[in-house]
Structures are given as C-alpha cells and as structure tokens.
C-alpha cells in the first residue's frame, strides 16, 4: 500500500520540480546539507596542493617565478596591442553606427566536482548565488567556451558543458561570418555543426566563435575548430565535426563571465529600415 502512496508522491514531486519549479528551496536546503560530501571528495586534492606548495624548494620557486614573469611580459605586450586594436575597432563601429564592444568582467572559480552520470556532461564549481552566479551565465576557460550555468545554490553551481547532448551554441565561422548551430553529441572532444548545406563555404581548420545570437553567450569567444567535413550525396546536409577549444576534461579553473549591459545603440532608425527593405527587394 505504502509503495503506491510513495509512487504518487514521487510523480507529484517530479512534476513540481521539472514543470513548475516549485522545489528550489528544498533543493537548496538539502544541497547545503550535503556540501560536506564535496569537501571530503576534494580533500585529497587539497592535501596534494598544500604539500606541493609548502614543500617546493627555493630554486623551483625562483624558476617558476621567472617563467611566469616572462609569460606575463609577453601577455602584457600582446594586450597593449589589443587595447589599441579594440579602440580602433570601436571607432570604426561608431562610424557604422553599431554598438561598441565592451569588456566583460570575469570571476575565476574552481571545479569541485564532476557529475558521475556517464551520459551527462556537467561539472560543479565552487561559486554560487552568494557570489552573484545566475542561471544561464556563460562559462569560459583560458582557451574557449566551456558551457553555461544550469543550477545555482548559495555556495556552488552546476555548469552544463558544450559537449553535452542537451547543449547547443549559436556560432559563426570566424573567416566569413556565416552562422550555424554547434551541438553537443555526448562526446567530450567532438561537437557537430547542425544543418549546414553542402555548398556552404566551410573548411577544415576553420575557427568557430560564438555569434551572440540567442542572447545567452557573448559574441566573439572562440568555441571550436572544424576537424572534419564529410559530403554525402545521399544526405541533405554535410556532416561537420569540430573539436572544442576549451579543455573540457582537464581545466580545473574556469571563468564565469558577467556581461556589462551594452549601451543602447543610437540607431538612426529611418535610414536603416529603408536600407534593409531596399536590400530585401
């Protein structure tokens, strides 16, 4: 008898959670109570880190310091050029009456857990709503786009990776700007470009960057590199695979992106409308 009661209760909870989003407070409370589980799992890593940092010899530290300094110099030099280039791009965009590119602010966070489900690509990071993380926030690592935040608790949040079955990113080809949708297929080092016609101008090695369409991911972040293109005459679309640039299964530190609100473009409406209608004709 009790099993029927529990089954009905489960179905009620399933619907309340998945369709009506009523139980987030229950989830948050239980998740906070279960945080020690993640502490225990990360303890060995923490001990390793601590021993490594406290046992390192003076020579090693000096050497590391030197390499880091030289790396910093190189990056600074590059960023100097970048700032002048950004300024120039913004000037040109102003000439075109388009909104200028704004720097996004970024919060570094650490991966503290991986979802054990082999069919789900999801990681848990150590920043939550207390640090301002929100659902839908884009996540990067030093190489490229990693994914987006799907669940937030006060001290931790879950990030769905771009390689997951349920994930898709709107992208454009960096070389010529043509757009597409990059789908995860449940394999960590492979993504698929959906519905690309056989005649599209795309080559192996093309860089795919986020297009910003859909409003979730900021435009211009590198996502993947095209690795193979197969034209099958029997299929309506080409089969295009890409390799994600982000180190999805290796990076330990990832970056949560906070977008500053973009300045509203002062569009000269009439001109633009007449231009587009003219083009449509």
């Amino acid at each position, binding site marked *: 008898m*009790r*099993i029927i009661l*529990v*089954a009905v*209760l*489960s*179905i*009620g*909870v*399933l619907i*309340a*959670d*998945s369709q009506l989003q009523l*139980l987030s407070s*229950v*989830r948050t409370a*239980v*998740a906070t109570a*279960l945080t*020690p*589980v*993640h502490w*225990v*799992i990360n303890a060995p890593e923490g001990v390793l880190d601590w021993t490594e940092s406290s046992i390192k010899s003076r020579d090693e530290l000096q050497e590391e310091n030197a390499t880091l300094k030289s790396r910093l110099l190189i990056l600074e030099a590059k960023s100097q050029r970048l700032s002048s280039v950004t300024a120039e791009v913004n000037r040109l965009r102003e000439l075109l009456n388009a909104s200028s590119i704004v720097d996004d602010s970024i919060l570094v966070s650490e991966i503290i*857990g*991986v*979802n*054990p*489900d*082999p*069919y*789900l690509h*999801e990681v*848990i990071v150590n920043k939550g709503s207390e640090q301002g993380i929100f659902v839908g926030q884009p996540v990067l690592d030093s190489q490229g786009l990693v994914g987006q935040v*799907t*669940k937030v608790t006060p001290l931790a949040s*879950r990030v769905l990776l771009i390689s997951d*079955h*349920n994930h898709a990113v709107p992208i454009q080809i960096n070389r010529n700007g043509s757009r597409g949708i990059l789908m995860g297929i*449940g394999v960590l080092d492979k993504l698929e470009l959906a519905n690309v016609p056989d005649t599209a101008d795309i080559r192996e090695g093309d860089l795919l960057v986020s297009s910003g369409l859909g409003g979730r991911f900021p435009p211009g972040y590198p996502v993947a590199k095209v690795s193979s293109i197969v034209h099958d005459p029997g299929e309506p679309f080409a089969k295009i695979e890409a390799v994600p640039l982000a180190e999805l299964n290796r990076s330990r530190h990832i970056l949560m992106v906070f977008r500053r609100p973009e300045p509203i473009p002062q569009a000269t409406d009439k001109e633009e409308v007449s231009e587009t209608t003219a083009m449509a004709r």
Partner: protein
Amino acid sequence: MQAASKDHPSHLLFISSLFLAFCFSVVPLQGFANNLRPEMICLVMFYWTLKYPHHYGILVGWLVGLCWDVLLGTTLGVHALALALQTYLILTMIQRLKMYPLLQQSFVVLMVVGIVLMLYRWIDGFFSQPARDMAYLLGAVVSALCWPLLAIIMGRIDRA
C-alpha cells in the same frame, strides 16, 4: 550473521555508512570506469533494509533517494522513486532473502539494482536525452560482485 543482529540499529552507523556511500557515488572517475561504478547507495540501503526492515522501510528509502537526486542534480523524485521501489522489492521477499547464502543474495542484488537503474534511466529519459546504450547496466553487475564483501564488512562493524 542474522543471529547476532540486535533489535535496534545504530543510527550513527546508518548515517555514516550512507555518507560514505554518497561520497563514493560522486567520486570522479575517468571514461568507461564511470559505467563500472558500483551503486553504493543502493547496496548500503539494501543492507539496512534487509537487516532492520521495521526501521528502514519505503519512506526512508524514498527520502534517501531524494538526497541522492539533489547530490546528482537530477530532477527531484527520480532516484527517490527508484530507491523506494528497491525497498519495496526487498520487503516483499525478505523472509526468503534472509535465508539465502551471500552468493544467492548477490544474484538478487543484480536483479534489484538492475531494475532500479532501468527505472531511473527510463524516467530520466522523459526530462533529458535518453541513454544511448545499455552499458549503465554494468553498474548492477559490479554492485552484485561487491555485495558479499560489503555485507561481511558492514556486518562486522554493526556487531562491534
């Protein structure tokens, strides 16, 4: 093993064994090893229900399953229903199950955990992409192989 069982379980032991099982179920594993992870939470709950059916019944199983859902970030109620079903299955055949030798119990574990995993995948398939293959059932096989060892160790600790 059953002869020495006390009437009242140690709640502290129950909670600490469950805590360890929770930790074990989210330890990151690489690649295919992920499919071979024994379902420690199922096994631990199997032990407690088998030994103290009056204390750890369907509702306890359901609540533990709810915590499991939160830990994995799945839709609330999926693991809860699966674990409640496991408890129910054990309770329906508990008289025989207690008489079985460990190896025969292992076989029942294989069946029950297999059913739990299939039920979980089936319900979860409604809310996200369904599983591509049946490799997840290997978890039930590994769980069955782990059962005798777990039962002996837990029995020792419980009696002490």
